[in-house]
């Protein structure tokens, strides 16, 4: 089992990565022109009021000292106080993390459920009508802007057919499920297009590979050749593509959460950026960074599991 030994040691490498990300987001968010105190006070802001708010949130300290406090807080498991919401950032994030997490997970799941059969259909009928159809659909899926796609889906399913809610997140399990259909479909239509393209290409190569020939030579029917030999061997590059796309996926949730009014981290981030709520931007960025690192870590574990040759 020592192929999995990296599971123990890899997390040690996360620390410097996350520290680096914290420095970058910390500096970047403060480089954007604008002042949280001014946003908070609105049109009636006076210099004295602004100075008071800045002092209250330690924004008048030198930037390196602010960073020091930020890291000191992180060490204590805190992320500072939101300027806009006046509560602990970690607490704020915890109230917003579930919808995003659920949205990303269902979107990924849905993407895989769409991509695998589509890619299989295309690869097994390579060069024929089904293949062309899948390729055209994938190209469209990548080409359509998600916010437009989202509106079209709402108009069709919620306004015209009235079978699904327009927006929101819901409370009970069924309610949430109903609210998640369109948002995750919106993301999945784009993401599955990317996955389908990669998977289709890998499958076509594997279908003509020696191992497929060998399986056919021992009398295996095409279905077994495909699902048991071609598919597992095509998955590894696609898993890694999925991991690489996690950043894009997070960007996608920001748009989708806004269009579908899902109270997740993406919306929180957008509003925090416009309000220059530094602490929240840092906090959310750290959470997204952790998620990205974690997803890639998981992808490595899956890769090692799927392909016994891989050692990390």
């Amino acid at each position: 089992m020592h192929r999995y030994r990296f599971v123990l040691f890899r997390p040690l490498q996360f620390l410097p990565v996350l520290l680096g990300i914290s420095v970058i987001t910390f500096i970047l968010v403060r480089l954007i022109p604008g002042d949280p105190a001014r946003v908070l006070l609105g049109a009636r802001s006076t210099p004295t009021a602004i100075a008071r708010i800045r002092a209250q949130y330690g924004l008048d300290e030198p930037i390196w000292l602010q960073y020091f406090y930020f890291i000191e807080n992180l060490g204590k498991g805190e992320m500072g106080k939101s300027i806009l919401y006046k509560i602990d950032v970690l607490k704020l994030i915890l109230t917003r993390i579930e919808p995003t997490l659920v949205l990303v997970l269902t979107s990924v799941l849905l993407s895989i459920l769409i991509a695998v059969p589509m890619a299989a259909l295309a690869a097994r009928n390579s060069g024929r009508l089904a293949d062309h159809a899948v390729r055209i659909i994938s190209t469209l899926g990548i080409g359509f802007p998600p916010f437009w796609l989202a509106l079209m889906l709402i108009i069709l399913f919620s306004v015209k057919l009235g079978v699904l809610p327009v927006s929101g997140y819901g409370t009970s399990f069924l309610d949430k499920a109903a609210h998640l259909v369109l948002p995750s479909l919106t993301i999945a239509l784009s993401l599955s297009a990317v996955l389908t393209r990669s998977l289709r290409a890998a499958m076509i190569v594997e279908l003509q590979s020696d191992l497929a020939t060998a399986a056919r030579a021992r009398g295996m029917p095409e279905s077994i050749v495909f699902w048991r030999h071609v598919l597992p061997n095509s998955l590894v590059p696609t898993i890694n593509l999925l991991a690489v796309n996690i950043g894009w996926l997070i960007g996608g949730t920001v748009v989708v959460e806004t269009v579908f009014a899902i109270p997740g981290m993406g919306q929180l981030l957008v509003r925090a950026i416009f309000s220059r709520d530094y602490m929240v931007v840092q906090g959310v960025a750290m959470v997204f960074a952790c998620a990205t690192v974690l997803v890639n870590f998981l992808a490595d574990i899956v890769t090692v599991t799927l392909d016994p040759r891989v050692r990390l």
Partner: protein
Amino acid sequence: MSEPILSIRDLTVNALLDGETRTLIDAVSFDLGRGEILGLVGESGSGKSMICRALVQLLPSKAITITGGSVMLGGRDLTMLDEDAIRKVRGAEIGMVFQNPTSHLDPVMRIGDQIAEGIRYHQRKSRSDAKAMAIDILAQVGFPDPQRQYDNYPHEFSGGMRQRAMIAVALSCNPEILIADEPTTALDVTIQAQILKLLMDLRDARGLSIILITHDLGIVAQTCDRIAVLRHGQLLELGDKRQVLGAPQHPYTVSLLKSHPSMPEEGVLPSIKTAVPVSPALPLLEIDDLVVRFPTPGLSLFKGGKVHVAAVNGVSLRVIPGETVGIVGESGSGKSTLARAILGLTPLSSGHISFDGLDLAQQRRQALAKIRTQAAMVFQDPYNALNPRMSIGAMLAEVLAVQNKVPADRIPARVHELLDLVGLEREFATRRPQSMSGGQCQRAGIARALAVDPKLIIADECVAALDVTIQAQIIDLFRDLKSAMNLTLLFIAHDLAIVRNLCDRVVVMYRGQIVEEGRCEDVFARPQHAYTAALIAAIPDIDPDKPLMGGLSVEAVPHLLTA
């Protein structure tokens, strides 16, 4: 010959490419007797693999189709069967073993499951029954611990064991016929002998009928009952092994036999001997107690970090100008690492290499500069070693211009001289690699090496990828160049027969060390080390009466099976 189990008549396979029909297999007819091993011999492009794939309708492309003839097995014509019916023949009646076990085994599926898969599908056995049967087969093909090894993945085995696993997969459904397509070409010579022995044992134990496809007449001589010689999709000669080898009818068969490296060539060897300088000249290359270590992959738990494996471990060697030294050994013996170390491509862990008096460890920059201008390498794969976008002439001109030894206005003339030297027509100057054969590419590769006007040429397995007749031509070329230009040549090969025919001195490497070194004829006649003896014995001799392994038992060979 007993009653044929498989009867092929006028089998014709055509390919439709760009609207043009080409005949790949031209009305080939032969029988396979029950319990017989039939050798299908030919060079690449002869159609020997295509025939076997046509038998079970596993043609590589939809553009290639069977257009005529019949393949009779058990009263049925296999060419007439539909997809469902032929699938029941594949594996269950005709098993196949392929050349490259690494690519033909599913890397992400356990070895045992790949065997059990066919059993479950063809024989409708339960999961546990299939597993028990698969373990039994693993034991039959020589896995020492089948119970445990059932759960291992292909990459966890050596090449020889992988090929055994492939054979196990092919045998899983008890086929009567086994088609082995170059089953040992990718293997080291001692492993090859074991696999061939395994095939013969299986034939005896199970009464299998085997079609053995190979380019090596030595293998055919040692294992087959009958031989079929193919060229350009046509059957040239078919007959009993002794008859074909002893009294070949077709001129092509004669030339194949002549170019077999195990045939000692009269009249050439003595002339080489005189070329060896008698006086102890200053060595061009001197290697002293060289060690090259690589860290093992993966993170070590312990302080002090990584475990190192010595790929080259305490090698000392002197090469005198004008000498041809052969370095032989099986894969993993360290011979390629040694070559890379000499060219400064891999760092030395300890010891010294000095080239023309300059020490690679101490005067690294000067020594490297000297090596770059005075040593050249010829690579194994002639296609990949050449830039596909450059014509041969441009490539040679570029080398000449960089070397700056020949004045610019002399370069075109020099390119022609080089082409003359390696036996290529001058019109090749305008050709690109993709329009050339493997042999022609390798000649171009040698021309590029010569363009450096080197004192030393290192050839790393430079004929391993070539057909046997082309191999012989390239060896001849080297021999001619050597006598004409007083080249110093370091010739690395796993094929002892080739080394024997070309080199003055041979160095035998085993697990990073030199186990034996000496003049070629001495080493081959009286090997001092058991490993050398085993290596020599494992060469399939073209004489069918010289038994494989020279009577040594397979198990006595300290091969790399466990590595």
